[in-house]
């Protein structure tokens, strides 16, 4: 679908980006020391930090990806919401307080507290960098994907703009400005989504969708009999042989594609043909908005409502969910057909789906395997849910946020505020997603745009604001990640591992240089990976974070015989095994290398269910082999008061 550039969206975006930068510069003048730069002086109020947790955590993937997945497939997107939130339980009950107690600036600090081992510092710093980079890729790709339709820039321009703004935020003021960016973004996002949810409920569900101006939208034809197909059917040939489609040529020579249904009737499809020379055709006409051109039409409406009414009118939250369950909605699937001349045609076809089906797990391609009877297929689902559960408390940009508050009680309180804000948001995602599903405004080619398009179906200003918030969402998360990565370089690698003697000023400068370098890397990766699925990449990051960091963190806290060699080995093995597993999975074969997924070496795509236990096992075995006897085995504690050197 071609999106019209919205001047209102550009204006609102510039306002948001400008406000965020202004705050950064203002606060930047206050943050001069290393403590100020990395941990905001430990002086952030717990409530602000709590909302900033939400800002950090509700990334582009959470917001755009989950809404899009629910809008396209139903309940399965909500599984991510549940998993992402449940992860906070690990953060609150297991990780938050000890981490605050043991560390100063970074995750490596906490791990290394008892040992003062260069091996741990190096391993933890590398794992922080790897996870941050993996988590950065989807954010940058998401940024580019947003800029393209909204502001009319090409993908790479979006990536570069976001990369530059974020690097500026991070280098001006470090953790203070990053925290305030998160705070603003987190609160605006949650409030805005609540407003949209109320509007969705007021609108109710209809079988005759209208646009924001009240104009009725086109509803794709179904159950058309053969004699009513306008035009002459073409013979099945080439790539079309054996496919469930018939191509019909009308009086003007325009070819449209109809899908053969099981009952012998035909239903309207939408086609996007890309010729070898790059020219695009929609439904047989050149793609565009001019006379004689065509574009993919927006979709998403109910085809049958309970009681066979046309419109439900305003609904309460529970009534809305019940109505969706008892309705039938036209979802869209697609099939790509490669023609002998090298061009491809993607056929988007209607799939009337009962609410009973899409309101339960297993209706999307990602999770459909839970309905299969094969055990390995189910493991894939369980493994992803485990990765989401364990991954949150292992994400470096979440972990460093515990150092911005003054004590353990504040760490606890800010986590509770975070859980409240994030939980509320995730409850809303189900309404937003289902609202988008029936908004009549979806783009069949891009699920990530569902939330902004839902807003556009209500009104233009809402669309402008939500687009701007989506941008700040990306900005916020990316700045947190770059902050974590620059801390890993300046504090863990340079100061602690390489033992470079840096004073406060040099250390902050090193971190800023590192932030710029990571920013450039993020821009490059964002451009390179522009074609990859955003949610898939986030899943990877959670898997790697959980496998590399969680065993070390948990065992350090709960097993007295843990040794430094055990921790180092667990991080290295967890990181390499999960990374390796992902790169050898069917998903990577298909999406990354373009190979046959059936040839993949590992039996399922999500490694967590294997690699997290492996990390624990390695830690225990290595620790047992490296025990020292006698009193030396007693862990040595850091002094309570850290003084100047």
């Amino acid at each position, binding site marked *: 679908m071609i999106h019209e550039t919205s001047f209102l969206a550009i204006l609102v975006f510039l306002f948001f980006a400008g406000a965020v930068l202004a705050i950064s510069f203002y606060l930047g003048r206050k943050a001069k020391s290393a403590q100020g730069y990395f941990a905001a002086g430990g002086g952030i109020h717990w409530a602000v930090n709590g909302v900033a947790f939400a800002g950090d955590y509700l990334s582009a993937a959470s917001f755009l990806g989950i809404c899009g997945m629910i809008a396209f497939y139903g309940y399965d997107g909500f599984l991510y919401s549940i998993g992402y*939130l449940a992860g906070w339980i690990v953060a609150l009950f297991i990780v938050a307080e000890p981490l605050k107690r043991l560390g100063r600036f970074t995750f490596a600090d906490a791990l290394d507290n008892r040992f003062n081992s260069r091996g741990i510092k190096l391993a933890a710093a590398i794992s922080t960098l790897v996870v941050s980079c993996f988590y950065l890729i989807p954010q940058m790709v998401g940024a580019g994907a947003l800029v393209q339709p909204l502001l009319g820039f090409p993908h790479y321009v979006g990536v570069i703009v976001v990369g530059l703004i974020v690097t500026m935020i991070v280098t001006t003021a470090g953790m203070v400005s990053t925290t305030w960016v998160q705070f603003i973004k987190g609160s605006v996002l949650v409030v805005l989504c609540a407003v949209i949810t109320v509007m969705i409920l007021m609108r109710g569900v209809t079988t005759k969708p209208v646009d924001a101006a009240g104009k009725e939208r086109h509803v794709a034809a179904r159950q058309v009999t053969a004699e009513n197909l306008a035009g002459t059917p073409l013979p099945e040939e080439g790539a079309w042989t054996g496919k469930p489609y018939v191509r019909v040529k009308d009086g003007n020579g325009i070819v449209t594609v109809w899908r053969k249904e099981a009952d012998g009737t035909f239903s309207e499809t939408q086609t996007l043909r890309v010729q070898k020379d790059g020219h695009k055709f929609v439904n047989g006409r050149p793609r565009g908005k001019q006379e004689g051109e065509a574009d993919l039409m927006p979709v998403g409406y109910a085809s049958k409502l309970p009681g066979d009414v046309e419109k439900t009118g305003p609904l309460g939250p529970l009534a809305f969910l019940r109505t969706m369950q008892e309705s039938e909605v036209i979802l869209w699937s697609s099939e790509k057909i490669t023609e002998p001349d090298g061009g491809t045609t993607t056929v988007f076809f209607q799939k009337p789906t009962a609410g009973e*089906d899409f309101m339960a797990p297993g209706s999307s391609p990602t999770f459909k395997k839970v309905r299969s009877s094969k055990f390995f297929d189910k493991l894939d689902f369980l493994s992803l849910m485990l990765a989401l559960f364990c991954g949150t408390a292992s994400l470096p940009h979440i972990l460093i946020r515990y150092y911005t508050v003054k004590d353990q009680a504040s760490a*606890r309180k800010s986590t509770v505020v975070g859980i409240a804000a994030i939980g509320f948001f995730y409850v809303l995602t189900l309404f937003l997603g289902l609202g988008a599903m029936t908004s009549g405004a979806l783009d069949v080619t891009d699920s990530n745009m569902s939330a902004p398009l839902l807003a556009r179906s209500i009104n233009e200003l809402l669309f402008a604001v939500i687009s701007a918030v989506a941008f700040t969402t990306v900005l916020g998360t990316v700045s947190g990640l770059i902050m974590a990565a620059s801390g890993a370089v300046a504090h863990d690698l340079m100061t602690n591992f390489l033992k470079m003697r840096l004073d406060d000023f040099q250390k902050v400068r090193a971190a800023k240089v590192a932030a710029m370098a990571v920013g450039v890397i993020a821009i490059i990766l964002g451009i390179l990976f522009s074609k990859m699925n955003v949610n898939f990449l986030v899943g990877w990051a959670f898997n790697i974070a959980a496998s590399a960091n969680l065993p070390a963190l948990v065992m350090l806290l709960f097993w007295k015989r843990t040794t430094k060699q055990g921790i180092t080995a667990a991080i290295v093995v967890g990181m390499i095994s999960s990374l390796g597993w992902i790169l050898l999975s069917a998903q990577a074969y298909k999406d990354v290398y373009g190979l046959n997924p059936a040839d993949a070496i590992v039996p399922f795509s999500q490694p967590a269910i294997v690699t997290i236990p492996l990390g624990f096992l390695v830690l225990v075995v290595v620790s047992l082999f490296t025990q020292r006897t006698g009193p030396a085995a007693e862990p040595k504690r850091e002094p309570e008061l850290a003084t100047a050197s």
Partner: protein
Amino acid sequence: MAGLDFKTPVTREQEDEAVVAYNTRIGLYLFTSYVVFYGGFMALSAFSPEIMSRPLLAGVNVAVVYGFALIIAALVLALVYMKISRKSAQ
């Protein structure tokens, strides 16, 4: 030594071992109860998805009710923890 390159001394929080041990134990109990609840959801989704689509509360199905319950339970447990955990004497 880690992080000792500062001009000003940074005070560490004074902590009472007994308080830390008490909070850790409470945290583990609450954590375990949530793991069981979450595990139940994973098991139901994976091994009997047909139960998930049955209506449970006001016509809303098990999948949605259980999902909302998991989110609300996280907040409730967090509040309970905040209420009963202790703070070290300063």
